[in-house]
Each structure stands twice: as structure tokens, then as C-alpha cells.
């Protein structure tokens, strides 16, 4: 693996973790009756940027390198299910994250206090944020399993 690909892989992980952290920060804020709009806007923006950049950096690594030697090594190794289930599921559920975080950011930037002060809408936003956070945790843990299965 070249230095560029290694850097992109690390960037994918770090940026994804930043996005997930921002989502859970959002979820914590949305538990409050009247969260700070500034905090919600900044956190959602960090999540959008984190996931889009993680998508691009991880995508480049996945498309140009993973499908060759890495995938072959996992399939030939003791845990072929690491690719068959974890990688296949991770690469596809991850596609949801940039769109979810973008929709959340739209709610906070354009809906603002009107949306957040409505308890039902705030609870719906909290549910969407938590679902996205769980997708992020699943993707992270899948990444750990996939990396550990390369022999």
C-alpha cells in the first residue's frame, strides 16, 4: 500500500469518527428542552463535512485498493464473512450518513428554533440523529473487524 492510500485510510477513519462524535454531541444537545442553536448548527455542519470527506477518502481507498489484495486476503483467510457481511453492509449503510447529516443541518440552519422548540419535531430529530450515530458505530466496529481479518 502506498503512503497516499495509507493516509487516505487514516483520514477516512478520523473524519468518520469526527462525524460520529458530532452526531452524538447533537443527540446530547437534543435531549435538552431548549438546546443552543449555535451548538446544533456547528455540530451538524461538522458532521456533514466529516462524513463527506470520509466518504471521498474512504471511497478512493476502497475503489482503487481494497477490491484487489485486501479483499482477496480476507476471502482466503479464516474470516471470509468479514468481507461478505461486515464490509458489504458497512460500505452501503455508510452511504446514508452524508444525506442524514445534510438533512439535519438543513433543519437546524433553516428551521432553527421553530423546529427545535416543538417537542415532537425535536424528538424526531433526536431519533434520526441516534439512528445515524448507530450506523456510524456499526461502520466503525465493522472497520475494526475488517482490518483485523486481513492476514
Amino acid at each position: 500500500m502506498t503512503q497516499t492510500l495509507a493516509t487516505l485510510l487514516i483520514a477516512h477513519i478520523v473524519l468518520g469518527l469526527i462525524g460520529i462524535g458530532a452526531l452524538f454531541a447533537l443527540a446530547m444537545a437534543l435531549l435538552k428542552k431548549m438546546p443552543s442553536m449555535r451548538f446544533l448548527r456547528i455540530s451538524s455542519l461538522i458532521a456533514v463535512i466529516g462524513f463527506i470527506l470520509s466518504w471521498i477518502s474512504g471511497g478512493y481507498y476502497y475503489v482503487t485498493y481494497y477490491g484487489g489484495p485486501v479483499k482477496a486476503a480476507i476471502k482466503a483467510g479464516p474470516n471470509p464473512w468479514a468481507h461478505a457481511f461486515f464490509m458489504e453492509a458497512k460500505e452501503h449503510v455508510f452511504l446514508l450518513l452524508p444525506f442524514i447529516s445534510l438533512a439535519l443541518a438543513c433543519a437546524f440552519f433553516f428551521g432553527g428554533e421553530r423546529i427545535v422548540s416543538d417537542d415532537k419535531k425535536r424528538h424526531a430529530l433526536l431519533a434520526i440523529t441516534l439512528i445515524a450515530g448507530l450506523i456510524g458505530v456499526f461502520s466503525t466496529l465493522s472497520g475494526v473487524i475488517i482490518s483485523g481479518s486481513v492476514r
Partner: protein
Amino acid sequence: MEPIQNIIRESNYKTGEKISRVPHAAFCALIVASLVIAGLTISADLIPPLKNWLKGTFSHHWIGKGVLALAVFLISFLISLSFSPTERRERIALYSSAWIVALSTFAIVGFFLYEAFFLH
């Protein structure tokens, strides 16, 4: 052609409610994009010609799914901007998108779980 500030800030003159169209449109677009991602993911695995078409057109099936999801999100967003949302419609869009995103996730994870561990 409506002024842009009507689309961004004050939209519904019928009910007098001042609601930005953007959040409603974004969550409608999220619903459609989630369905497309789940639908394309599962159908491309079940229908090899579809996967081959994605590979042939976009160089990689995963890039194809991402590009199509992005295109569908943007088109749905622009179409949804033409609707004047009410508080109720916006609430429905939010709850629906929570359910659809959760179901899309379960569909993708469940499909690959079945394919990896139970199919063969």
C-alpha cells in the same frame, strides 16, 4: 417564479404559517435517497445485469450507487421545494424519514446477514 426568500423563509401564504421550505424538502429528499440506496443495494446484488450496468457506467458499482443517490437526493430536494409545507406536513416528513432510514438500514444489514451466513 417565486422570490428566493419565500422559498428559504416564508412559504405558506394559504395558512399564514411562516415556514421555511428547506427542512421539509431536505427530509423528503432523505426519504427518497434512503429508499434508493436500500433498493439499489439489494437489487444490484440480486440482479447481476444491474450491477454490471453500474460498474460499466460509473467504473464501480459502489460509485454508481453513491452518484445515483446524490442525484436523486438533489432532484427530490428541488422538487420538494416547490411544495408549501405546514407544521403538520413537516412533522410527518421528520417522523417518516426516521422510520424510512431505520428500515433502509435494517434492510441492507439484514440482506447481507442473510447472504453471508444463511444463503449457502
